[in-house]
Structures are given as C-alpha cells and as structure tokens.
C-alpha cells in the first residue's frame, strides 16, 4: 500500500537524533505516516515518545537527521529558515503551553499582526481590520486587541494562538497538545472550534496528544508512539474496536473514565507497570519489552516491523510477524 504522493503531508522514515553529553537521544526513530486534506491524524504518546519532536521537525524548528518530509509533494526536509516563504505560510503550529506561547510583553494586536506583516498580507491600514476578523472567528471581542496575554486565562490565550495560526491561511496545522493544560469545558469549546475551521477550510491537522478519549472523538486516524517509534496506527474506529499492540492496551487501560460504558471499552487484563525508559537508553529490540506482559526472548533482540493486521490497521510487534513474502510496508 503506497502513500499518495500529493497528500498534504507525507513523512518517510523520519529520524531525529540529538547528541547530548549523556549519549545519543533517539527522539524519533524511523517514523512514517501520511496525512490527507481534511484529515486529522492523532499522534498519541507519553513522555519520551517523540511525538512533539515529530511536530517540531515537520514545522522546521529542527532539521531531520535522516528521512524525508513532503508537503503537497514538495520536499520540506529542512529548517524553517531554508524553506520558501509560501511554505511557512501554509504550515502553522499551535504550541502546548498557553503561558509561554504568546509573548507576555506584547499586545494581542501585535501578536496577531506579526504573521500578516511577515507575509505581507494586506496593507498596513488593512491589517487591523483583518486582526479584528481573526478575533471574531475565535469568538473574542474587539477590545481584546489591547490586552496582554498575562491578563487572559489559559483558554483565551490558546484561542489567540489558534487565531494566529489561522492568520496566514494555512493548509496544515500542527496542534501540540493544545488543550492539555485547559479545563474540560474550555477544551470542548476550542476543539469544536477547531473542527469547524477544519470543515470550512479543508485543513489537515496533525494532533499531538496523550489523551486517547479526545482522539476517539476528533481524529480520523490514530497513531501510538513509544520511545521514538510508531507502535500502532489505524483509522479511529478500527483502532478502538481492536487495540492490538500491548502498549496501546496498557495506555487504554490506564485512562480514568466516568461511565460504565467506557469501562467496558478498556482492556481489563493489562495493568500499567514499570517506568518509561529514557530515550537516551532505548532498550534493544522492541523498546517496550521492559514493560510488556506478553513479551518473549526475541523481543529484546530484534526490532519489530510494521504489519497490516486488518485493512489500514498496522501494528509493530513481534507477535505479529510479517508474512514471509511481504516487501517492506509503507503505512498510509
């Protein structure tokens, strides 16, 4: 199964390693996926999984160590300074921490005008009107123009961050845990807003999170990452109907839920044990074997490959060996 080349985003065999005094951090280790227009891919994982590093590499804050990234067919495997202007316009990001993603010493107006100024959208007189329009789209009143971020609550700051991401008319938005620090009711508001924008503007979202319940309701496809590698990737309904990888099952069983119906969805037999290893010391073979309840000897020796267990549903686990005649699989 081959990824369609003019998909909004195609990531092939992406690697990002950092050299530190304590050793090499294998933050992203051969990650591949593709994302089409209007789709949301949920990239789910805990600390050390590399999900944020994937986002920062796609957006161009890091240059990949190896591998390739294609945006609408064009190669973007370089840092943002080296990319052509229209690409920086087309790919935007909303960062995780509303406290520091907006400069506390600048006003909302200045913050929202920046992308317009940099990309020379509109004339100087025009820009204020455009900024007011952006505020209206995120349902904030006009007098917020003159406020500073520290006067606003976390939810409002994130809405400004979303407005900023929309300012240049992007086609792909990376959302790095945009609502993790926010309360449930504000999260609901922002997520619904994001979904509306996605429909209106045919946006593709790469949604980084640790919250599987949220992805159940937002993502078209879900990918689970652990220590830099993708363990499982599937369309949402197949993923939740048939969670296959042992780590996926451990994640699902750890989620605190509020109703008996949800309890029934959680795999009951796998209980969370062990600490997450540091990405400086990735265990050999399958990275998860130190905590896996079903692992066996080969798991600490050889790395598992991506195998298709049902249509569109791929798992990387030695308990699902690839068929003897298969070529290396490209996950879609």
């Amino acid at each position, binding site marked *: 199964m081959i990824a369609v080349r003019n998909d909004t985003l195609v990531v092939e065999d992406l690697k990002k390693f950092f050299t530190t005094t304590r050793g090499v951090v294998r933050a992203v280790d051969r990650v591949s996926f593709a994302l089409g227009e209007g789709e949301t891919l949920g990239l789910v994982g805990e600390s050390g999984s590399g999900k944020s590093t994937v986002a920062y590499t796609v957006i161009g804050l890091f240059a990949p160590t190896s591998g390739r990234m294609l945006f609408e067919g064009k190669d973007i495997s370089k840092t943002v300074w080296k990319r052509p202007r229209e690409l920086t316009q087309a790919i935007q990001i909303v960062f995780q921490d509303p406290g520091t993603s907006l*400069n506390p010493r600048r006003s909302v107006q200045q913050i929202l005008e920046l992308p317009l100024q940099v990309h020379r959208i509109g004339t100087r007189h025009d820009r204020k009107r455009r900024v007011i329009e952006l505020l209206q789209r995120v349902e904030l009143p006009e007098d917020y123009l003159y406020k500073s971020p520290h006067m606003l609550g976390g939810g409002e700051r994130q809405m400004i*961050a979303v407005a900023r991401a929309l300012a240049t008319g992007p086609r792909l938005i990376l959302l790095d845990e945009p609502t993790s620090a926010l309360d449930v009711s504000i999260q609901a508001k922002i997520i619904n807003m994001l979904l509306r924008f996605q429909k209106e503007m045919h946006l593709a979202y790469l949604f980084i999170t640790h919250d599987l319940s949220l992805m159940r309701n937002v993502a078209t496809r879900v990918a689970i990452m652990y220590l830099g590698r993708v363990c499982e990737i599937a369309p949402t309904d197949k993923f939740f109907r048939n969670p296959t990888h042992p780590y996926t099952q451990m994640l699902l069983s750890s989620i605190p839920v509020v109703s008996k119906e949800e309890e029934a969805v959680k795999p009951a037999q796998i209980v969370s044990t062990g600490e997450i290893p540091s990405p400086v010391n990735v265990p050999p073979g399958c990275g998860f074997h130190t905590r896996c309840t079903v692992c066996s000897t080969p798991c600490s020796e050889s790395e598992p490959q991506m195998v298709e267990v049902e249509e569109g549903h791929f798992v990387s686990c030695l308990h699902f060996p690839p068929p003897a005649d298969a070529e290396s699989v490209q996950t879609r």
Partner: protein
Amino acid sequence: MNTQEQVVPQRRLERLRKGWYKFSRNPISVAGLAIVVVVAFLAIFAPYVSPYPAHAGSFVDFATSASAPSLRHPFGTDAFGRDILSRVFFGLRYSLTMGAVVLSLVVLPGVVLGLLAGYYQGTWIDTVIMRVTDIFLAVPALILALAVCSVLTPSAFNAMMAVSLMWWPWYTRLVYGLATSLRHEFFVQSAEVIGASRWHILFRELLPNCVSSIFTKMSLDMGWVILIGSSLSFVGLGAQPPTPDLGTMVADGAKYLPDQWWIAIFPAVAIMITVLGFNLLGDGFRDLFALEEV
C-alpha cells in the same frame, strides 16, 4: 476612528496609573524615588538653588575659612572659605552627569551584544562576543580606570571614558543570561516558525522581556558609577580643582578630620544618600515592571 484616538491616550493613562499603584505599594521604593528626584532637582538647578553659586568656582575668602555649620553656611565652609552646601549641590551635578553619560554610552552596545550572543548561543558569534566580554570583566574596574586616567591627562571627561570602557560588559552578561533562557520559549519559536526576521526576534520579542532587569540594573549602576567617579576624584584623577566634586571634597576634607569634620562628612553623606536613593529605586523598578498575575 475617533473613538480609537480617544481610547489610546486613555489606555496609556490607565497603564501609568496602574504602574504607579504597583510601584507605590512598597514605601521603600517611593523613598528611593523621592531621594532621586530631590537630588536630581538640586543637581539640575544648582546654580539657582545654591546660596553661593560663585563658591563653586575659584573663590577664596580666608576670613570665613573652615567655619563650622551655621545659619549662613548650613554645611560650614572649607579651607578656602567656600560654602560647602553650594559645592555639594554642584558636586551632585557632576556625579549625576557622570552617571548619565556613562550609562547612555554603555547600555545600548552592551545590551545589543548580549542579545546577539544569547540568541546565537553556541555559534562563533557567541564565542567571540562573550570571550571579549570575559577579558574586559577580568580587569577590575577601578584599576583600569586608574590606569587609563593616569596615562591620559586627568580630567572629568577622561574619567567618564575610562569608566565607560569597563562598564558595558556587565550589560552584555546580564542580557546574555536572559536571552539564552528566553530563546527556547515557545513565543520565540512561534515567531521563528511564522518566519519573522532575526531583527524582529531580537528586538521585538526578546528585548521587551529584558527591559525590567536592564532598568533595575541601570538604577543600581548609577550608584556604582557615582562611587567609582568619586573614588577617581579622591585620588586626583577625575574632576580637577576648582570644580567641585564630592570625591575631591572628601579627599581634601579628610586632612581636617576630626576637628573640622564638616568639610569631609557632608560630601560623604551626600554620596551615600544619592547612592542609596538609586538602589532603592532600582528595587522599585522590579515591582513596576512585574507582570500582574491573573
């Protein structure tokens, strides 16, 4: 459009009022501000406020020399019969001028170098700037000032240049520390991702977050510069007689201690109060620039 024009000055006024509220919560900072305002007033208007402005120049009247503090001469007179109160006012003038000149020469280059070195941390720009800074910092300020002043003709101007030469690295160090920690913040990365120019990131994103520390340091530095200037004058390398300078006055007056104590003590106290005022004000700046928490 009209309402917008009305709104802008209203908001500025509101911000000022709020700033004053935050500042005035600490009575000590207000005391510092009061001292600085009084000292500045005396310094600027010295020729008009001093009872004997002529005494600031060449003036001799041995009849009244070394007389104790009295109604006519509240701080007494020195060995030449000059009114010490007037000379203290003029001395403040020199001290404050020195502080203002040095800081205005030093802050801009120091801050810019610090921003560049901090943002480009790890590259050759960082290495070059910070090693040069280290070299300058390795030499004690006073010693270098003494060296420079003794090589050139001693004068107020040369003293100011000498002190300026040693002072800029402190600002570079300060801003370097701030910039290196700030450049990893998400708002800086947002600006980079949006495609903003390096100029914008340095001066519109990083610099506003350093302003609080810079102003606090500037206020504290006024005190230091005044002390160093006075020290230079004390050893004869600053302002030359008959220009009144607080340090020189203390030096000259030291010979007459403890009998004619007023000749040395009043100028010394003037230095002390001025430096204290700037220090207290510096603390107040920190409160003034602090972001209010929601």
